């Protein structure tokens, strides 16, 4: 409650940063969608009261900065390698909530076989994908999830199928594997989307804690720098260009 002599009573609804974030400071670009997803990830852990039994395995990308500021036990992995590290950690600490945090360059380029094998094996871990269709940290080049027509540093006219081939719709691919118990794709293009991501993450974590199998949450995030759009246009571009191919929704939910 905030109360001063002449001011009306109010209660705090939400603080600047999630409880499990040590600092609001980061060097990510204006309009970046990744911090929004990280906020939802940490909120989900707090809401499940799981902070003291969580192990996060972080990949390499712009979001790697959060491995120093997320207040949960962290193992920093290499580009693409988080799913196997998460597997080893979960097998030795089966009571823990184990998640990976990876970008699309990390998970779908370098680490494609890792995430597919981990899902197929039905490992009780949750892989979280921050998908913006670019290699953000190294300067904005195309990845395996870049959609046809999407602008990146080496597809300035837009990705061309004949020249660059087609994107991999990783969420859909993972949903088809028998070992996957829950797969969902969300997007942080507006407040409702952001809130939906938190619900998806909670559902994935709950499924993991039930021991039901592999869980996966893909989050489309804005990268106006990589897409060469003004920051305010990031959400609209993402919704129209990425969202029309990587479709939002729950892709699989085994009961």
């Amino acid at each position, binding site marked *: 409650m905030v109360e001063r002599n002449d001011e009306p009573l109010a209660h705090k609804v939400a603080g600047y940063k999630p409880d499990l974030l040590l600092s609001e400071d980061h060097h990510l670009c*204006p309009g970046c969608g990744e911090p929004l997803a990280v906020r939802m990830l940490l909120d989900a852990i707090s809401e499940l009261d799981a902070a003291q039994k969580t192990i996060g395995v972080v990949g390499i990308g712009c979001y790697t900065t959060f491995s120093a500021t997320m207040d949960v036990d962290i193992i920093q992995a290499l580009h693409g390698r988080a799913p196997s590290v998460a597997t080893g950690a979960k097998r030795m600490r089966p009571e823990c909530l184990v998640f990976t945090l990876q970008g699309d360059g990390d998970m779908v380029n370098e680490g494609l076989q890792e995430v597919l094998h981990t899902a197929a094996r039905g490992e009780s871990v949750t892989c979280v994908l921050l998908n913006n269709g670019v290699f953000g940290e190294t300067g904005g080049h195309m990845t395996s999830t870049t959609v046809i027509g999407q602008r990146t540093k080496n597809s300035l006219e837009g990705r061309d199928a004949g020249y660059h081939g087609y994107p991999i719709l990783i969420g859909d691919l993972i949903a088809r594997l028998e070992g996957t118990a829950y797969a969902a794709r969300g997007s942080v293009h507006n407040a409702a989307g952001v809130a939906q991501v938190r619900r998806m993450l909670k559902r994935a974590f709950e499924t993991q804690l039930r021991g039901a199998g592999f869980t996966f949450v893909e989050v489309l995030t804005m990268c106006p720098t990589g897409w060469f759009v003004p920051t305010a246009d990031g959400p609209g571009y993402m919704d129209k260009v990425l969202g029309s191919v990587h479709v939002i929704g729950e892709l699989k939910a085994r009961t």
Partner: protein
Amino acid sequence: MNIPRPTRGTVLIATERCKGCELCIPACPPRVLSMSSEVNGKGFRFPLLAPGCTGCQACLLVCPDFCFEVYQFETEVG
């Protein structure tokens, strides 16, 4: 004509942390945020709050720089 709008909530804005991305402006349902004309220490314009906030948290959810702290009043104000 300005119709007075009920103010049910308010936000504190960490204006020095803002990077001027403007994502909060269209995210706010009652449209009570607008960008300043002056700039902060980093050189970015930052959001200003007008009456009519409902404390819905939409701005907090879409802000990449954790610039908002959201409150709701016990009773409607103004």
